[in-house]
């Protein structure tokens, strides 16, 4: 914190700034117009992810506007001295996948990016949040940002997860409990034994979706799991610096007597595999549950609820297990890491995809892709009839060619089920990688617990 302005925001110093092709061009243009340089180019890392193709990345990008944005990023990075992990670079990938996997993301840092899923990095005990393009420009120009202090919320998840339930189900459950706006204005800490027992990648999935309940950021206190994950990664501290860093990180936890503005307690055993039925991530139910009946909905909220179900082609009160699906998308900054791919592969091994579905698996980064190939995961997918594509945001937001056709149902491991998110008219059902794998094999919404 550089300074607090009386009656106003604080000036927050930013340790790491990630940028990508979609939300940065206007910021660079702004710098040019003001005749400014990038203040600390070494603290900025760039990649191309949002609108890159996920097939034939070695060829020039076909879609003209996407190509211009990716080229503009290249030009801006060269001009302003910023490291770019662009298409073709072995480190290229989704910005929230590569930051952690390269060891750039470290506990105690402040991290921003012109992307709302920057909350992902909070899994390392960082303060990490998404910003708009004007703010990207501010950080490029001054390495600082104006921020008001958020309220604090702690969500405790205690106990053991049931069979077939993974971290994605935890966060979908939490959002269903508190709604898509339930944490707006809050910084959220996730705590409790069920969180402690998760791997770093599973923790990232949880922090990633903090924004889906409106939270400014989500975080988990660093522990041995965090340290073990970072150790030896490309940009992790080395030698003495490592020892010093680890000792600093061990001080990053909430005091025992810390006071939160809001505190939630969740029992892990209450959570079953989750799925969303509507058009915001708060509209989630257990896989054996039913779409709320009209009688369960607040009078004032009925028009929005009915609009949502009309879009989804679902009826109030219906059970959705067994409903046919058309596409399965496994990818996005929520669930495209190697553990996600391993989870899917171990379920799918020896099985075949159903005839009525198309299955796209999009790794989060070149490194994830490489590792998947080294581990033979790509063979499992090929044998099952899945297509392993190349890294990018892909069908999570359909900025590239990977769009779901209008009216089709897509079981997706991504983070948003908004109208048109995966393509105009596309119908998204958010689930865990395991539940997605089950749907890929059966061709319908499936309770994965019946198959494992």
């Amino acid at each position, binding site marked *: 914190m550089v300074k607090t302005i009386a009656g106003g925001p604080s000036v927050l110093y930013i340790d790491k700034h990630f940028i990508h092709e979609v939300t940065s061009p206007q910021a660079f243009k702004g710098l040019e117009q003001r005749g400014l340089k990038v203040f600390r180019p070494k603290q900025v890392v760039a990649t191309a992810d949002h609108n890159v193709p996920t097939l034939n990345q070695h060829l020039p990008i076909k879609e003209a506007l996407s190509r211009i944005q990716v080229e503009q990023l290249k030009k801006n990075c060269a001009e302003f001295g910023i490291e770019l992990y662009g298409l073709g670079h072995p480190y290229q990938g989704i910005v929230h996948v590569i930051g952690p996997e390269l060891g750039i993301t470290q506990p105690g840092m402040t991290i921003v990016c012109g*992307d709302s899923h920057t909350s992902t990095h909070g899994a390392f005990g960082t303060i990490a949040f998404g910003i708009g393009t004007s703010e990207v420009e501010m950080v490029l*120009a001054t390495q*600082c940002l104006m921020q008001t202090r958020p309220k604090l919320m702690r969500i405790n998840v205690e106990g053991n997860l049931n069979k077939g339930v993974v971290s994605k189900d935890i966060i979908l459950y939490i959002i269903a409990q508190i709604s898509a706006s339930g944490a707006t204005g809050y910084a959220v800490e996730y705590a409790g034994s069920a969180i402690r027992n998760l791997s770093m990648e599973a923790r990232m999935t949880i922090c990633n979706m903090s924004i889906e309940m409106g939270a400014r950021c989500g975080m988990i206190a660093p522990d041995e799991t965090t340290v073990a994950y970072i150790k030896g990664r490309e940009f992790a501290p080395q030698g003495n610096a490592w020892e010093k860093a680890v000792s600093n990180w061990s001080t990053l936890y909430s005091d025992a007597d810390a006071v939160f503005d809001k505190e939630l307690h969740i029992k892990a055993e209450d959570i079953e595999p989750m799925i969303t039925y509507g058009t915001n991530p708060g509209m989630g139910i257990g896989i054996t549950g039913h779409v709320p009946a009209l009688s369960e909905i607040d009078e004032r909220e009925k*028009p929005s609820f009915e609009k949502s179900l009309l879009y989804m082609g679902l009826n109030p009160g219906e059970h959705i297990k067994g409903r046919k699906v058309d596409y399965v998308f496994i990818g996005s900054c929520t669930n495209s890491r190697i553990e996600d791919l391993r989870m899917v592969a171990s379920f799918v091994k020896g099985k075949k995809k159903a005839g009525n579905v198309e299955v796209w698996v999009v790794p989060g980064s070149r490194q994830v892709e490489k590792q998947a190939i080294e581990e033979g995961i790509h063979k499992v997918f090929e044998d099952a009839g899945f297509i392993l594509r190349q890294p990018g945001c892909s069908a999570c*937001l*359909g*900025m590239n060619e990977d769009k779901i056709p209008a009216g089709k149902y897509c079981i997706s491991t991504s983070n948003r089920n908004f109208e*048109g998110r995966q393509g105009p008219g596309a119908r998204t059902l958010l689930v865990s990688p395991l539940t997605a794998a089950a749907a890929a094999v059966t061709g319908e919404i499936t309770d994965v617990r019946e198959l494992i």
Partner: protein
Amino acid sequence: MGKSINIIESTAVPVTIENIDTDQIIPARFLKATTRDGFGKNLFRDWRYENGDEQKPKPDFPLNNTAYSGKILIAGKNFGCGSSREHAAWAIKDYGFDVVVSSFFADIFKNNALNNFLLPVLVPESFLQELFELVHQDPAAEIEVNLENQYIKIVATGAKESFEINSYKKTCLLNGYDDIDYLLNMKAEIEAFEKQ
């Protein structure tokens, strides 16, 4: 883009839908520009047109209803949730709105709006419903938004509600200042902080 903002007296456009996410405000496929201009024509694109076809406006959508016009957009609670795309604020401003009124705003959208001299006015749910009712019954009803004195008023009845805004941001909006100018003037302090 018009800089500085204070008193806006105008009719309003009501969009009663709740949880309007930034993907609806400006769908991702329109984020491929490298400038800040021209997003207004794609504001609420998929809600405005059948199959995205500009020749086929959906008559039910308030932006297509010629009875409604003005510089004030009134929207259901949790407005601007989802993606951090500032293009959403650019699209609303470019379309011609200076104010968005709702009973709840998503954080990132609110910041983006303020950085673009688009004033988010947060009102209690009951007052929001009163505004919807007013505009539905009389689309010509004038509403006054007064930043300096921090209130929103139904001109005909005088019904008034105050709204919050932090004093720093208020000064910025009233005078056309932006954060970047402020931060640039702090360079020495920022450099001193880096050495700590």
